[in-house]
């Protein structure tokens, strides 16, 4: 496996390999972007390491994907930026289909707060120790997770109460 990494990114990957030999599953590149997949239970350690030792202080984005019909169905991807080294790194964790949970990184990057709520809203992945675990786009009364692959494009009929169109119902 040969990777074309910039000098600073190579240093980061080397440091990660050295610090977490057991927890780092793979590092790979696709279309020029670098991805590091890690064990779910080491997420907080690795993120703290990346922020404090490797200057990845800015969490640009955080999102989920659905690997429908694969093992470990859901994946959460963290889009990290190091302002100092001008590099971008993606960190991935996978979680199981039944009752998916991931540790919340909002203690490390408070910016993760809304993004994690979005992932919960769309995929139903719960985040441990999240400070404000509510849905963000959809109402709390909605029971489904729309970006899961089995959710129909037209929505589910009658899944939500709509307001009365008649102004005087009494």
């Amino acid at each position, binding site marked *: 496996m040969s990777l074309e990494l910039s000098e600073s990114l190579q240093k980061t990957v080397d440091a990660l390999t050295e610090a977490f030999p057991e927890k780092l599953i793979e590092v790979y590149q*696709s*279309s*020029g*972007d670098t*991805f590091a997949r890690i064990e779910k239970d080491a997420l907080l350690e690795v993120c703290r390491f990346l922020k404090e030792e490797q200057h990845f*202080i*800015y*969490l*640009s*984005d955080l*999102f989920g*994907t*659905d690997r429908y019909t694969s093992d470990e169905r859901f994946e959460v*991807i963290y*889009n990290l*930026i190091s*302002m100092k080294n*001008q590099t*971008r790194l*993606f960190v991935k964790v996978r979680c199981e289909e039944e009752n998916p949970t991931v540790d919340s990184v909002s203690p490390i*990057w*408070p*910016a*993760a*707060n*809304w993004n994690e709520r*979005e992932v919960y809203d*769309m995929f139903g992945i719960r985040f441990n120790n999240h400070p*404000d675990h*509510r*849905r*963000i*786009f*959809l*109402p*709390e*009364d909605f029971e489904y997770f*729309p*970006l899961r692959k089995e*959710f129909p*494009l037209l929505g589910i009929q009658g899944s939500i*109460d709509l*307001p009365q169109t008649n102004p005087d119902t009494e």
Partner: protein
Amino acid sequence: MKLSDIQSKVNSTFFVEHQKKLYQSLEDKHTTIEELDDGDPLSSKMILNMGPQHPATHGVLRLVLQLHGETIEKVKLDIGYLHRGVEKIAENKTYQEFMPYTDRMDYLSPYSNNVALCTAVEKIANVEVPERAHYIRMIGCELARISSHLLWLGTMVMDAGAVSFFIWTFKEREKIYDIMDRLTGHRFTVSHARIGGVANDITDEAMGAIKEFAESFPKEIRDYHKLLDRNRLFFDRNEAVGVLKTEDAIKIGAAGPVLRATGYGYDVRKFAPYARYDEVEFGVPTRLEGDNLARYFVRMEEMSESIRIINQCIDKLPKGPVRTDNAKQAYPSKDEVYYSMEGMIHDFMMTDTGICPPEGAEAYHAVESPKGELGYFIQSDGTGHPWRLKINAPSFSNLQVLENILDGEMVADTVVIIGGIDPVMGEADK
């Protein structure tokens, strides 16, 4: 007595559970639970619901404010009101079919959004874009930036109390609409970028209009500066209002001008140059104060820098095709479609299946939209539509900042601060 009576006093009948959770989370926002005084004869503490149809909330933003007198004690935002599900739509459309939807995301600068999607698809599918198309895209993007900043300027100053200024910025915006009409064939939702290039070449008429605009606009900016920079009313309403501290900006994930107004010169055009931004000279304006006034100065200077970029692009504009020649990657031109069988077949193939990136490929590409880093993450399963398409929207990040910086401000400043953040709800809602 606990503040648990928000629930009993506000009697929701609609989406009961949702409303309850929202009020609950307002109560829980800080670790110490505030106590509402029941024997408060003047009822100086109150819950104020602002929006979702308030003229100052830029569309459909809803704020739940807990007030003490005129001071905002804490605030929660409720942003889900459009519910279009663009990411779900994207997963069921071909890449090119989805492109017009991006116009409707950040509808104040549709050109940047088109380019953002197309560059991401080009990255994942290894499409080469002709040189001339890059320069046309840059001109379009910078015009979109000016157009978006002009709308922000007009509405922000209007929120601060000056209405006629709004008309003047719209006069300039109107000129950009006319340019877009000539350049792309549409005034508002332009849909000009294509995978592998742009839809059509820049005409002499459009070029003339752009040159004229680039020449006359700097004078307008000087006039705006003259009117506002030393204006006591404008100054007092914006200085030290909505302060985002430098050390917090990165933590809360601010993007674009909001981030740059706190001192970080993070600009995707410099960080990871796309198109031909590495071949033109421009500055990244920053300020240190992080207040509303700093955001004003940053955006005003950005408009001047955009004009500088446009002028350089016009000088450098190379000759050549505007779309890649490979019929498996881009739509053929209409001439070919109407007059050759090959062309028609390719047109049909592009519409039916579209471009197919390699299976298992992943790519993220971001551009600097007027609001900040606008990125598209695409996962492909080898078919003509994306398996997963995630939009990293700057308005979403900036609205989260808004929730944090409103605490402790005066209620009258809310509208100015929202204006200064410049959110577009169409983009925040996915």
